[in-house]
């Protein structure tokens, strides 16, 4: 079975929501759409307070290449454009839209609140061979699609590699290695055809010859389904991978499937250029992104909603919900029947890389793959003790770094040495903090170190 070196085995806890079919949430009364939901330049609003907007209308965009437009996810009235809490931290200007119940003709074909089966729509078949690469990229950019796995990197930028970096392989990432989360799993089971269509579109857009669908072994149903659907396809293979964390990291996937290593950052003339999968001729995309691309190409539908797993032992009814972007967490939790125990921690994303939240007023953004609610008992925090030099973090770091040394150097503010120890290669997967017997918050130290190095560089 293919896999990468090091990493950790985790208790999966996916059974809570694994069997729940994706359901559409009841429409929220208001949505909060932050202007920065992606990596890159934040958008500028195209609407002003008091404007009526229709579902699917573009409400914010940017001239910058590395950016992605934002669309209204419900029809209604813009009630304010102001600084609101953002799930990734800090305050970000957001457009707040209040739903108006008047029957307005949306720009989008499907009705606002369809009940029952949500995926059965009029199917406009568009042969991929009839599309041009530039056309596909244009549609992706206009639809505001970003990587839906969590990092939210604008997809049209990812699919525009420079001329000297030919892309030969596309990997569709269906690993979902984070415990608890099941949204990608459900997408693969319920929308396999759209996943495959999206993968083919991506391959066409960059001229890649081969494609892989990478799925961890614990999703055997999905593996069987994709093997069946792709048995007549040349050039696309389904790869079953070992269930190990962080198997879904793109560098780990490339190592496991193609046995290629993404080079580390190189500095040419001072500026650090990070190593990217395209350096080894590969692009990795999430299955959710592929489905969004399919919708954009077939129906011209912008990214308005995404599948979110609401799970954890403190949630009454764990679900996989299809949620309009900008829906406040409080509305989603109500939909799941509320909490059943004392809440210890609310996390956006999975338990390993997710971000703790302090309020339920924050919205679902493009990168929200799940909402995890832990009980007080589970969210226990132990005090940091001195490092006992056991090297467990080094044994498990999937990037082959020395987390304990990095932590020590951050404490000592040795910013120059940190660069020598390749702090910027850390993918912040959290394996080191998880295995540390002294409970040292190594990832927080490393994040702090990265930030300080950036600050020092910008001062110069």
């Amino acid at each position, binding site marked *: 079975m293919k896999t990468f070196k090091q990493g950790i085995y985790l208790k999966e806890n996916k059974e809570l929501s694994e069997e729940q079919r994706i359901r559409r949430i009841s429409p929220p009364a208001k949505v909060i759409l932050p202007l920065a939901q992606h990596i890159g330049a934040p958008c500028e609003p195209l609407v002003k307070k008091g404007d009526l907007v229709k579902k699917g209308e573009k409400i914010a965009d940017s001239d910058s290449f590395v950016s992605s437009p934002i669309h209204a996810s419900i029809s209604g009235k813009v009630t304010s454009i102001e*600084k609101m809490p953002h799930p990734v*931290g*800090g*305050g970000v200007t957001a457009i707040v839209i209040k739903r108006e119940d008047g029957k307005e003709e949306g720009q989008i074909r499907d009705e606002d609140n369809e009940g029952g089966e949500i995926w059965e729509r009029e199917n406009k078949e568009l042969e991929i061979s009839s599309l041009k690469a530039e056309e596909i990229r244009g549609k992706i950019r206009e639809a505001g699609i970003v990587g839906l796995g969590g990092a939210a990197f604008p997809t049209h930028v990812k699919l525009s590699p420079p001329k000297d970096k030919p892309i030969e392989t596309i990997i569709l990432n269906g690993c979902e290695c984070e415990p608890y989360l099941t949204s990608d799993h459900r997408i693969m089971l319920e929308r396999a055809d759209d996943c495959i269509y999206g993968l083919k579109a991506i391959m066409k857009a960059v001229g890649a010859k081969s494609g892989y669908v990478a799925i961890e072994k614990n999703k055997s149903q999905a593996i069987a389904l994709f093997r069946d659907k792709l048995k007549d396809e040349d050039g696309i293979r389904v790869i079953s991978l070992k269930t190990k964390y962080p198997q879904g990291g793109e560098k780990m996937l490339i190592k496991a499937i193609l046995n290629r290593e993404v080079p580390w950052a190189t500095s040419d003339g001072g500026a650090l250029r990070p190593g990217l999968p395209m350096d080894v001729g590969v692009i990795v995309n999430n299955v959710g992104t592929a489905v969004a691309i399919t919708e954009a190409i077939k129906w011209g539908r912008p990214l308005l909603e995404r599948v979110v797993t609401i799970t954890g032992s403190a949630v009454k009814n764990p679900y996989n919900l299809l949620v309009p972007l900008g829906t406040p967490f409080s509305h989603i939790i109500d939909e799941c029947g509320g909490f059943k125990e004392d809440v210890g921690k609310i996390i956006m994303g999975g338990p390993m890389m997710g*971000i*703790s*939240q*302090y*309020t339920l007023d924050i919205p679902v953004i493009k990168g929200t793959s799940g909402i995890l609610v832990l009980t007080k008992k589970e969210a226990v*925090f132990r005090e*940091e003790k001195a490092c006992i030099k056991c090297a467990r973090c080094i044994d498990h770091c999937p990037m082959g770094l020395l987390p304990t040394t990095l932590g020590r150097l951050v404490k000592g503010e040795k910013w120059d040495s940190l660069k020598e120890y390749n702090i910027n290669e850390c993918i912040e997967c959290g394996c080191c903090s998880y295995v540390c017997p002294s409970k040292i*918050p190594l990832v*927080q*130290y490393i*994040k*702090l170190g990265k*930030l*300080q190095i950036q600050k020092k560089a910008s001062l110069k």
Partner: protein
Amino acid sequence: MNIILISILSVGGLAAIFAVFLSIAHQKLKVEEDPRVEQVIGELPGVNCGACGFASCRAMAEEVVGGNISVGTCSAGGNDTVQKIAEILGVESEVSEKELAFLQCGAVSGERKKKASYVGIESCQAADIAMGGELACDYGCLGYGDCQTACPFDAILIKEGLPQIDVARCTGCGNCVEACPRDLISLQVLDGEVHYRVVCSSSDKGKKARLTCERACIACNICVKVCPFDACEMKDNLAVIDQRNCQRCGVCAQRCPTQAIRETES
């Protein structure tokens, strides 16, 4: 007896040879150093704070004596030091206004609201990247004391979660300005006279600011209305006092409902 004599003679002989060699080397290979460098170093604070932009006090002294930088470069030393350096070098001294660290947040730990419980690295920089730690205010002092650690002159002490700046010890080196992740500390002219300053940095609207902190500027505009000299201004939901126009009458501080404008020490 014999062994002792041989030892004394051989070691003593070697010492004599080396002494001759060293004294010749001292004459031939001597590096001329300006004696004024040592004198200048004697006048500098000597804590290598780095405010001048050089790695150490010695590095700066060499540059000053070499005439490459102005005699007023050591901001930490203040006017006295500058004057003494100028005397040593025999040049005109430059008198500049003394700028000292000033903290633009005035809420002690009981007055600012908490939004969550933060468990992690106890440092302002680390808490700031984790959603601002437990502090409800997005602008205020986190109180973990990064500035205290950064201060080479022991001029900052955290008291009730708020740094107290000892103006007698502060030299204006600016290390704390750099250490604060929320840019709350700035260098301001504190010339021993009374000043009225806004001790809040919150750009939140009145209601939200009031809910997050008892001492927040709520943008009520009272100071703007009562100021007889038009020195108060409201910028981005925060009062700003123009020190050039301020005549130090103190009406704004008396009338401010949240004590966000205060008379500052020294």
